[in-house]
C-alpha cells in the first residue's frame, strides 16, 4: 500500500516543461493531419472524387490485398507456430530464429528481390503475373507473417495445457482437442497479429509501388506527383485514414468479445505431437519459407550487386549511407529526448490531460506513413516554409511517425522505477533536474537505448515519407532502392537494399541483448 501511493498520487500539476513537451508532440501529430483534412474538404470535387470508379478501384484493390495477405499470414503464422511449439519438428531453435528474420527485410526490398529473381529481365525465369497483385501479395505475406507468428507463439507458450488435456480426457482426439481447446486460447493473439498485418498492408507503399499494383497509397503518390492535383491526393489520404480508423474500431469491438485466458498459468509442459513421417517434409516447408523471406532476397540481391559491381556508383551509395544514418540518428536522438519528459508526464502525473496527450502522441504510429508525410508536406509548405525542403522536416516526420516506439520503450522502463527513489533523492537535498540527471536517466538507460535503436531501425527503412520530404537531389538508401527498382535496374538497387538489411540486422542484434538485461532493482 504505502509503496504504491506515490505512483497514484495526483500531486500539484505537472511542471510546465513536461506539459509543454507533451503539447509539442501532440501538436506535431494533430495539426498536420487536421490541416490535411481541411485541404481535402476544400477540394471542390471531393464528394464526386470519393465515389469515382477510379477511386473505388483503389479502395477495392487495397482492401482485397489486405484481406488476402492477412488470410495467408494467419495460415502461415499459426501453422508455423504450432509446428514450432507443439510438434517434434527437427531444428526447432534454428527455425524459430529464422522464422522471424523476415522482420528485418523491408517490404520494398522483398518486392525488389522477387522482381530481380522472377520479374522481366530477372535472374531466374520469368513468372507470368508476378508484377501486380500476386507479386505484392507474395512480398507482403513473406514479410508480415511474423506479426502473427510471434504473438501466437507466446500465447501457445502460456496456454494452459491442462485445458487441452482435459479435452482429451473428455474423449476428444488430438486433432479435435487442438481445435476445441487450443485454438480458442490463441485466437486473441492471432486476431491481434492479423490486425497488425492488415494495417501494415493498408499503409504499405514500397511493395505495391514496386509491384505497380494500384492501391490507395500508390494512388495518393501518383496524384501528388502529378503536381497540378494535390488536393485530390489530400482527399485520398483522408480516405485512407478513415479506412485505418475503421479497421482499428473493428479490432476494438472484436477484442471486447474475447474471453479472458484462464488464470492458471501453465502447470506443466504441453504434450507434443509426433509428426512421424511428416517430420522432414514439415522441416523442409519451414526452411523454404525462411529462405523465401530472407535467404532469397539476400541471395538474389548479392548476385545483382556483384554483377553490377564494376559499374556501381560508389559515391552515390556512400552519400546515401551518410544521409540515411544521419537522418535516422537525428530522429532516434530527438525521439528519445522528447520521450523522457513525455513519459514522465504520462507515468508520474496521470490526469485527463496526460491521457489525451498520450493518445495523440501515439496516433502517428497507427496512421499510414505516406499520409503523415503528405500532411507534413502541405503543412510545412504553408506554415513552415523555412523547413520545407530541408533535412529537418524529414527528421520531424520520422519523429512524428516513430515517437510511440521511443515512448513505449522509455515508459516501460520508467514504470519499473519506484517513484519513492525520486522522493528519497529530493529529501536528500537534490533538485528535480539534478535528480533526473543522477537517478532517473541512469536508471532509464536500458529503455533509452532500446527506444533509440528501434527508432533508428524503422527510420532507416522508411520509404514513403522520405520520398515525399527529402530535399531534391539527395538520396537515402531507401530512395535509392526505390528508384532503381522502379526503373528495373536491379544491379543499381541491390547494394543499397543489402545495406539496409545489414544495418537493420546489426542494430537488432545488440538490441535483443539490451532488452534481456535487466537493470539492478
Amino acid at each position, binding site marked *: 500500500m504505502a509503496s504504491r501511493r506515490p505512483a497514484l498520487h495526483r500531486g500539484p500539476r505537472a511542471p510546465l516543461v513536461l506539459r509543454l513537451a507533451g503539447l509539442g508532440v501532440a501538436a506535431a501529430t494533430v495539426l498536420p493531419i487536421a490541416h490535411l483534412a481541411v485541404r481535402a474538404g476544400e477540394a471542390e470535387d471531393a464528394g464526386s472524387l470519393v465515389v469515382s470508379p477510379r477511386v473505388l478501384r483503389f479502395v477495392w484493390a487495397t482492401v482485397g490485398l489486405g484481406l488476402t495477405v492477412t488470410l495467408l499470414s494467419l495460415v502461415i503464422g499459426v501453422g508455423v507456430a504450432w509446428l514450432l511449439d507443439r510438434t517434434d519438428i527437427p531444428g526447432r531453435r534454428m527455425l524459430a530464429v529464422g522464422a522471424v528474420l523476415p522482420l528485418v527485410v523491408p517490404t520494398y526490398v522483398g518486392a525488389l528481390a522477387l522482381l530481380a529473381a522472377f520479374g522481366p529481365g530477372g535472374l531466374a525465369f520469368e513468372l507470368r503475373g508476378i508484377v501486380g497483385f500476386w507479386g505484392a501479395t507474395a512480398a507482403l505475406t513473406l514479410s508480415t507473417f511474423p506479426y502473427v507468428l510471434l504473438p501466437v507463439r507466446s500465447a501457445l507458450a502460456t496456454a494452459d495445457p491442462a485445458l487441452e488435456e482435459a479435452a482429451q480426457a473428455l474423449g476428444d482426439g488430438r486433432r479435435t482437442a487442438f481445435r476445441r481447446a487450443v485454438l480458442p486460447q490463441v485466437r486473441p493473439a492471432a486476431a491481434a497479429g492479423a490486425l497488425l498485418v492488415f494495417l501494415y498492408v493498408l499503409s504499405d507503399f514500397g511493395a505495391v509501388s514496386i509491384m505497380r499494383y494500384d492501391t490507395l497509397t500508390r494512388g495518393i503518390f501518383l496524384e501528388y506527383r502529378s503536381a497540378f492535383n494535390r488536393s485530390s491526393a489530400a482527399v485520398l489520404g483522408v480516405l485512407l485514414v478513415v479506412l485505418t480508423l475503421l479497421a482499428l474500431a473493428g479490432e476494438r469491438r472484436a477484442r471486447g468479445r474475447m474471453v479472458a485466458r484462464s488464470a492458471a498459468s501453465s502447470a506443466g509442459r504441453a504434450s507434443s505431437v509426433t509428426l512421424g513421417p511428416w517430420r522432414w517434409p514439415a522441416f523442409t516447408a519451414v526452411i523454404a519459407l525462411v529462405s523465401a523471406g530472407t535467404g532469397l532476397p539476400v541471395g538474389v540481391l548479392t548476385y545483382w550487386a556483384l554483377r553490377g559491381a564494376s559499374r556501381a556508383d560508389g559515391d552515390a551509395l556512400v552519400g546515401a549511407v551518410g544521409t540515411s544514418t544521419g537522418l535516422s540518428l537525428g530522429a532516434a536522438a530527438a525521439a528519445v529526448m522528447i520521450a523522457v519528459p513525455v513519459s514522465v508526464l504520462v507515468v508520474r502525473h496521470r490526469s485527463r490531460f496526460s491521457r489525451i496527450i498520450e493518445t495523440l502522441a501515439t496516433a502517428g504510429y497507427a496512421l499510414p506513413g505516406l499520409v503523415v508525410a503528405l500532411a507534413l508536406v502541405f503543412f510545412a509548405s504553408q506554415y513552415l516554409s523555412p523547413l520545407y525542403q530541408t533535412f529537418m522536416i524529414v527528421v520531424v516526420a520520422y519523429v512524428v511517425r516513430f515517437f510511440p516506439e521511443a515512448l513505449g520503450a522509455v515508459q516501460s522502463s520508467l514504470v519499473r522505477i519506484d517513484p519513492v527513489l525520486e522522493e528519497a533523492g529530493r529529501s536528500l*537535498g537534490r533538485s528535480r533536474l539534478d535528480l533526473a540527471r543522477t537517478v532517473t536517466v541512469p536508471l532509464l538507460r536500458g529503455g533509452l537505448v532500446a527506444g533509440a535503436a528501434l527508432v533508428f531501425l524503422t527510420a532507416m527503412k522508411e520509404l514513403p515519407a522520405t520520398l515525399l520530404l527529402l530535399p531534391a537531389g539527395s538520396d537515402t538508401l531507401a530512395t535509392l532502392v526505390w528508384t532503381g527498382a522502379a526503373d528495373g535496374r536491379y544491379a543499381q538497387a541491390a547494394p543499397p537494399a543489402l545495406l539496409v538489411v545489414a544495418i537493420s540486422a546489426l542494430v537488432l542484434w545488440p538490441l535483443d541483448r539490451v532488452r534481456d538485461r535487466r537493470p539492478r532493482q
Partner: protein
Amino acid sequence: MSDVRVALAGVAKSFGVVQAVRPTDLQAGEGELLALVGPSGCGKTTLLRLIAGFEAPDAGTIRIGGCLVAGEGVFMPPERRRVGMVFQQLALFPHLDVAGNVGYGLKGMSRGERRSRVQELLALVGLEGYERRFPDELSGGEGQRVALARALAPGPAVVLLDEPFSSLDLSLREAVRREVRRILKVAGATAILVTHDQDEALAMGDRVAVMLGGRISQVGLPEEVYRRPRDVTVADFLGDANLIEGDLTEGVLHTELGQLVPNGLVPTGPRAIALLRPEDLNLELVADGPATVVDVEYFGHDQVVVLRLPSGLELRARLHARERFPRGSRVAVRCAGPRVVAFPSQAARE
C-alpha cells in the same frame, strides 16, 4: 522537552472527500525520538509527507528548526527542508553502490571530505568495508542501515522513518530496531518514527503520539500513554485493555470486581468505566470463585488467562507462567495494579 525542532500547528490535509489528517498539533524536541503510532489508514504517512514537503497542507503551519516551511502562503520544496527520510521499501538507488548512496546528499564538499563523511557514517552504522557493495548485494538489515546512514549523512534537522521495519522478518526486526535507536541516539538526531505496531512504539519512542482517524489523540511518555490513556479508544489501541463498567459514588467505582478507586481525573456522572491492564489482575484458585477460566494462552515467559465473569464479561489476565489455571476452574479476581483509570461511561458506548 528541550528546544522544539519540528512544530505542526493546526495542520490538515484532505484528498477529495477523505480527511487524511484533521487539524493537528504536534511537536518534536531536539534530539528526541517521537514514535507516531496508529492503525492502518489513520494518516501517519500523510503526516510525514506533509513534514517532508511531498504534500502541501490545506491548513495550518509547519516549522522545522524554527523556520516556517509550509503554511501562511509559504511552501518550501522538499530538497530545501533538510529532512532525512527512511522509507519502508528502503528506496536505495540501485545503480549506486553503498558509498554512492550514502554520499548522495552531500553537496558542496570536496572529494576527500565526502569520503571521510561517508566513512564516518558507515562506521556509525557498523558497515565499514561495504562501500563497493550494491543494494542488491545487501541483506534486509544491512540495507536498512545503509538507508539510515544515507538519511543522516547531510546532517538533517529531522529524520522521518515510515514503518522502516515492516519489511523485515520478525526475528530480525527486534535487533534492527535496537540498532536503529542506538544509531539515532549516537547521532543526536531528532526523529519521528511511524509504526502501526504499539509494542514498537512503546519500546522505541522517547515519547509516543497516538494517531486515530486523522487526529493525534494523545502524546506522552510511553508509560503515560499506556497507563493513563486519554480515552477508551487509545486504551484499546495500545495493548490489551479490560474495560469494566460500574456505578460511581463519591469517587469510588462499584463494579463486578468490587470497589475500585480511580485516581487522577475522575469522571463525573453516575456510571464510569475502569481500565484494567491484564497485568493488573491477580488470580487465585478458589473452589467457589466468581470467575471461570475460559482459555489459557501460554507464551513461555508468561501466560494470558481468559476469564468469564458471571455477567458474561470476559477479562484477560497476564500472569507468571508458573501457576497453572486449568480450563473450567473457578478463580477469584483481585485488582493489583498500581492505579486505575476511569472514563465517562458514554465514551465507551460509542
